[in-house]
């Protein structure tokens, strides 16, 4: 099987006249990294991997030695749809290994594979479908002020439909790259768009999210537009989230489905939800990893603020969408806090770990919070035992630091590096004097 797969890749490189093969992998912060090899090196890469110096990659550095191996995952080999006159290129996702071939602890893809392996040992495959929001903006100048496309006359001379045609071209490209799109639409906010991907197993989806962000930005750039996944680029306009629709399958059966339950939720689903809710604060630094992420998680913008669940309440952290026609395979839960700037491999890892902990320990699901939580006082909520998500990156890091669940899910290497890196980010931010402070205090104080 494996040999045939290699053969398939090598023949395709030959038959399609591939000029360069791009080896893709991801740093700990979720940035796509890549280096290119010539087709002649592909066979060698498939057999033995390609070694490179990992010390320049965020989160890969180790004290002893920095060389690591990129091992192409032949099943992700894909010809890139934008061939130019010089010929086509292809890409393949890689697992990163130590020189002896064992998984490298700093590789987020290996971390997700390890967590999926633990789920598989219990008989579960983890399925994810993200709804990804982002903005199309004018290319930023040196002031980095976000300019909406329908503002400032950016498209004065052309049709206002350009963002829509950009989105259509993006979807076409995604579909030729094995990433089927379920829905897409213009969001409530000006210049904001949403593309919902069709569910796949979590590893394929994490790869797909990486490809997605790359394709959206590339196609926008070709049209002199800047696409951004920044969680909250504009103060008074809702931010960009990445709601995740989650389900566990046990073979062909949706382990979340129970036809006799009022919400069609199985005990497994309820325990999984309880696990997510109980550990939500601990995993928030991973699902919302920037200083800016916490400016999205504020009341009034359809982003969750409180740790609660409900069937039809978009202010909750977990929503249980009503599945069509009691369709068992569509039964799922929607986790609403993550934003599209997260590292999908790590975010899926900690979410899965939290849910599985709930199943393993048989956590009890708290009562549904179906009122609009944005309109309730914090004291009232505290009495209902509904707490807030961390209010800042700093708070999220403090909770994460004491979480053995997150440490186990990420492994020591990434856990420690992530905390170090993010604390440094917080320190830089804390010392920054903002426009808000100058405006408010400079004259009055």
């Amino acid at each position, binding site marked *: *099987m494996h*040999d*045939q*797969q290699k*053969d*398939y*890749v090598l*023949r*395709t490189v030959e*038959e*399609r006249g591939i000029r360069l093969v791009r080896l893709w992998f991801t740093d700990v912060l979720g940035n796509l990294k890549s280096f290119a090899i010539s087709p002649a090196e592909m066979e060698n890469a498939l057999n033995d991997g390609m070694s490179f110096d990992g010390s320049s990659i965020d989160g890969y550095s180790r004290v002893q030695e920095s060389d690591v191996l990129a091992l192409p995952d*032949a*099943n*992700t*080999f*894909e*010809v890139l*749809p934008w061939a130019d006159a010089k010929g086509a290129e292809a890409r393949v996702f890689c697992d990163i290994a130590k020189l002896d071939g064992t998984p490298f602890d700093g590789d987020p893809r290996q971390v997700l594979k390890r967590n999926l392996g633990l789920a*598989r040992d219990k008989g579960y*495959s983890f*399925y994810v479908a993200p709804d990804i929001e982002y903005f199309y903006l004018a290319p930023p100048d040196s002031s980095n002020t976000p300019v909406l496309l329908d503002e400032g006359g950016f498209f004065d001379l052309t049709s206002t439909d350009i963002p829509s045609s950009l989105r259509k071209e993006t979807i076409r490209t995604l*579909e*030729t790259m*094995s*990433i*089927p*799109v379920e829905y897409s639409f213009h969001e409530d906010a000006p210049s904001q768009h949403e593309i919902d991907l*069709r*569910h*796949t*197993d979590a590893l*394929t989806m994490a790869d797909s999210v990486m490809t997605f962000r790359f394709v959206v930005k590339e196609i926008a750039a070709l049209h002199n537009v800047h696409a951004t996944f920044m969680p909250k680029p504009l103060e008074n306009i809702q931010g960009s989230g990445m709601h995740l629709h989650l389900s566990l*399958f*046990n*073979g*062909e059966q949706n382990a979340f489905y129970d036809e006799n339950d009022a919400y069609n939720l199985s005990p497994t689903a309820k325990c999984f939800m309880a696990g997510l809710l109980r550990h939500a604060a601990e995993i928030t630094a991973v699902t919302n990893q920037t200083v800016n992420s916490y400016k999205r998680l504020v009341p009034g913008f359809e982003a969750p603020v409180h740790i609660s669940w409900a069937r039809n309440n978009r202010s909750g952290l977990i929503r249980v969408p009503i599945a069509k026609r009691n369709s068992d*395979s569509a039964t799922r839960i929607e986790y609403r806090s993550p934003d599209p700037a997260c590292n999908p491999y790590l975010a899926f890892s900690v979410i899965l770990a939290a849910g599985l902990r709930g199943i393993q320990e048989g956590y009890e699901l708290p009562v549904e919070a179906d009122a609009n939580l944005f309109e309730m006082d914090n004291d009232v909520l505290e009495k209902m035992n509904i707490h807030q998500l961390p209010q800042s990156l700093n708070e999220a890091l403090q909770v994460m630091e004491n979480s053995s669940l997150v440490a186990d899910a990420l492994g020591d290497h990434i856990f420690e590096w992530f905390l170090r890196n993010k604390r440094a980010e917080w320190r830089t931010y804390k010392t920054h004097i903002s426009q808000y402070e100058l405006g408010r205090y400079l004259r009055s104080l």
Partner: protein
Amino acid sequence: MNTRTSANENVVGQMIAVFPNPPSIDLARTLDLAGYRWKAVSSADDAAKSEPVEGWAGAVVMCDEDPEGGWAICRSLRKNDNPVGHVLVLVNGAQLADLEMRDDLFDDFCLSPFHPRELESRLRHMFFTEIRGSRESLVEYSGLILNLETYQASFGGQPLDLTYMEYELLKFLAQNPGKVFSRETLLSRVWGYEYFGGARTVDVHIRRLRAKLGEEHANLIQTVRSVGYRFGQSKWSA
């Protein structure tokens, strides 16, 4: 392991794999009398291990006593780097239904208990067609072309870029047009039994293939409600 040597004008000097090990006396005698060189194998692993350098010329697999083991051998011979071209299976009357949807695993079959003359004729005919090189390397269906030798797919003359599993799934479906396959069948036949990611994987790949075929042609792969998938027109429709 039994090894017999003799000459046969069709497969001179080449070795045929025979299952089970040892084969029935009738089967051994028929093969010997017809002049085939053969080697008995006891499992798929054994068939892979004792494969001659030049590859198996073909295989005779008795499925009546141990159908699981027999079909596993057929499967592994076909999944081989150099798929074994000429496989004859022997099944008893009660197992005829097992042949359904396994068309790609054998080239001919014979009812067991067999008449030695019939088995001999079938083997001769099977190897005769091999010599004429009639093995199909192109699969074509209304604009879709799969070249099994180069692994390349095209639709309406345009190259269709597929991942390996997408290609394998499309190949399997296009080789069996009009037939309905359940998710489990597709999972076991295309992914193999070592895959345990769940039957949802089939849905994911079907959706990806449809997306790549484009909206106008997405219905080339049809969903058959509560059963599975069918490629092309039903063989029952006009």
